[in-house]
């Protein structure tokens, strides 16, 4: 157990991964990262509101998340990309059922992107699609969730993006691993910029926003993704404002 003075003078007593009875929204629930984080949180007793964009919905997700055998309540909803009212409605339904939202995890469908997009794709159509699907929907789901967090003056938000936003496409500058795309690199760093600004705006209201930048081989590195998620969702992150854990 840790006991330190939190913001606004509140005492914070919260060990890492003490999640029982908490409520979490996971956007991009059927993505690899969303699914693994969902299963991890469910195993620790977190009630989950899983949100997917229409085309990405994977059948049987709730059952997969519940495989852990926990008693966490899990609901799964689909929202159309860019549907502001849809995000509000889905999050509102979870709040009606549970009373509050403690966590939001935004995990876009990066593996699907990597499979479907050619590296040298220079089309304007795919740029419009990715900007909307990734950056704009992160904005919308955060905006839909945030009012419910400030009611309790507490909440933690995690934005997932990729290291390509810092390096181009490799693990370090100048390296080429054929991992990203021009669209991914721009969106990823855009997510970082958006996150740092939002984090500053809302930390005075008790909500912290931080991020995880996935490396090129993150599919084989899910332990570290879970580790980073635990770090940001736990009480340890209360003073971190718009910080990114880069997993490469």
């Amino acid at each position, binding site marked *: 157990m840790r006991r330190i003075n939190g913001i606004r003078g509140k005492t914070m007593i919260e060990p890492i991964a003490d999640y029982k009875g908490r409520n979490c929204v996971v956007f991009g629930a059927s993505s690899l990262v969303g699914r693994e984080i969902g299963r991890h949180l469910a195993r620790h007793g977190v009630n989950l509101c899983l949100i997917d964009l229409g085309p990405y919905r994977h059948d049987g997700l709730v059952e997969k998340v519940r495989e852990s055998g926990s008693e966490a309540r899990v609901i799964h909803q689909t929202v159309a990309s860019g549907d502001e009212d849809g995000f509000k409605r889905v999050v509102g339904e979870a709040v009606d059922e549970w009373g509050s939202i403690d966590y939001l995890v935004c995990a876009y469908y990066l593996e699907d992107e990597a499979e479907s997009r050619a590296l040298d794709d220079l089309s304007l159509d795919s740029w*419009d699609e990715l900007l909307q699907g990734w950056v704009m929907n992160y904005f919308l789901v955060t905006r839909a969730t945030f009012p419910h967090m400030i009611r309790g003056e507490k909440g933690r938000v995690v934005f997932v993006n990729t290291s390509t936003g810092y390096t*181009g496409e490799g693990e370090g500058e100048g390296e080429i691993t054929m991992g990203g795309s*021009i669209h991914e690199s*721009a969106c990823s*760093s*855009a997510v*970082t910029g958006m996150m740092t600004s939002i984090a500053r705006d*809302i930390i005075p209201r008790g909500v912290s926003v931080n991020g995880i930048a996935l490396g090129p081989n993150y599919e084989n590195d899910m332990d570290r993704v879970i580790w980073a998620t635990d770090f940001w969702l736990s009480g340890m992150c209360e003073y971190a404002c718009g910080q990114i854990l880069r997993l490469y």
Partner: protein
Amino acid sequence: MDLRGRVSLVTGGAGGIGIKVCERLAALGSFVYVCDIKGAAAVADRINLGYREPRAGPARCDISDREAVEAMYAHMSREKGGVDILVNNAAVYGPLKARDFPEISYADFLKTIQVDLSGAMYCTLLAIPHMKQEGWGRIIFTAAPMSSSGIPAPYLAGKAGFIGLTKYLSQRFSEDGIHTFALALRHVDTPLIRKVVESRGHDPEKAVKSLHEKSLTGKMITPDEIAAIYAYFISTASPRTSGTVILADGGITYLR
């Protein structure tokens, strides 16, 4: 430094930084398309007064409008063959009121990021084929640090997005002779910064003085200085400088 025969496109060309960049590139011999939503023709005319042959032309365009950008490129391609030097400089700050999260509306967020990031992306994607064909190209970004306090989310998302773009383009297209460079700025002594501080209820002159003092250098960077830096990177032949992102904020970021 000789840019004769090179065609430039400067977005936000009629703004504080853009005018100086256009003037500088024209002075170095490039033909410059001044791209802006208003004021482009006036800037181009003023530049041309100093030369026997036209060195500048207007490219009036709302770069958040994809079809308008495509039409602009088609026009430039017909007139001059294509763009060799692209300066992605245009930006809007977003709404002057209700700009913070969560007050900022989705519509305002979308409009701002469409200009600041998508506009640059459209211009860049449409410039690359010609640059690859020529085996020479320069793409410059007027950017911002990924983390800056007090900057609205869509503006910062757009400007920070340039950093990933700069890195990626450099790695992918250096062998094609296309080099990239980004200058990450905080405060610049332009009319826009006066407008922003005024919208926050501050006396513009006092606020600008305070911003000068805030910098460890004692003064904000000026559009002339930025134009000189861009010209330097545009003229550099070595591909080893490509992908460079320079934080030019007078030490402000590290003070916080």
